[in-house]
């Protein structure tokens, strides 16, 4: 059985795009995605899973992103909350690798 080493939460307002983000993350060995469409659901998702990365996706405003980041960082120090640009495209893997790379330093 494959061991999940990296748990990623994606929060956005566009379910069709979130589903692609989920598929791409889950397609990567050792990575597992959970997707939610509200900020409250994002906070509640931590009850079941200890996420290391939260991607803020399409439809979330800059203000909503900042509020969510502040709340999650308060509740779960160490979590990285960052915007995913591009919609599940060629940047997703790069964004994860950049976070893991910066945490090594």
């Amino acid at each position, binding site marked *: 059985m494959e061991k999940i080493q990296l748990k990623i939460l994606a929060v956005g307002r566009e379910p069709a795009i979130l589903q*692609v983000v989920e598929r791409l993350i889950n397609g990567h060995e050792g990575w597992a995605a959970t997707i939610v469409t509200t900020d409250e659901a994002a906070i509640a998702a931590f009850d079941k899973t200890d996420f290391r990365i939260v991607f803020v996706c399409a439809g979330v405003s800059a203000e909503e992103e900042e509020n969510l980041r502040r709340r999650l960082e308060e509740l779960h120090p160490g979590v990285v909350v960052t915007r995913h640009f*591009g*919609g599940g495209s060629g*940047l997703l893997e790069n964004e994860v690798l*950049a976070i893991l790379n910066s945490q090594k330093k």
Partner: protein
Amino acid sequence: MSNTILHKAETRGHADHGWLNSYQSFSFAGYYNPERTQFGVLRVLNDDVVTGGKGFGSHPHDNMEIISIPLEGSLVHEDNMGHKEVVSAGEIQVMSTGSGVFHSEYNNSPDKPAKFLQIWLFPNKLNVTPRYDQVKIDPLKGKNQLQQLISPDANGEGTWIYQDAWFLSGRFDKDSRFSYERKKKENGVYLFVIKGSFTVDGQLLETRDGFGITDVDEIELLSLEEGSEILIMDVPMKNKIQ
């Protein structure tokens, strides 16, 4: 004093998927180089060749300004905004993907390759209503002078995007000298040689080399070969999201 960064063509990322042969000036997909992730808001500069009859199936994007510049052949574009267009060499395609768009891009020819530059910029406004545009480039305007392709101004020459960025291109005779003045103090200038060779402030640039310059107002260029072509991208070094 200017700061510069040179990306020689042969040092770019490379992915050959059979149907797609892609050279990447910045980290993209399976190519990740932490030293080469972006130049200001310029995040992706892919030099792609799609084989005849093949292409990118329907897939989403959001919050990215995506500019495609066909260099040879043509692509068929289809999206969920209702556009079905053919974009050919001599034209530029722009998508402001904003709150989200699904699109496909296929080579319009069943047997000839389509070559194009795929360029992505971070937008200065999030979640805008997605927008598609396509414009023709006047080949005469870009002869021995720079022609504006893209700007932030909806009424400007070429087309426009949600970013304080300007793209210009030109095709130059051997020994043509010209200068470029950056548009804004906060911007840097990234130059990409499409064909031929140039010197840029004394730096030799050959085909498909990229060269980023910051902290300088004016750049001096010299074409070293007949018909040398260059693309200039004048982009904010820091993104100011509205």
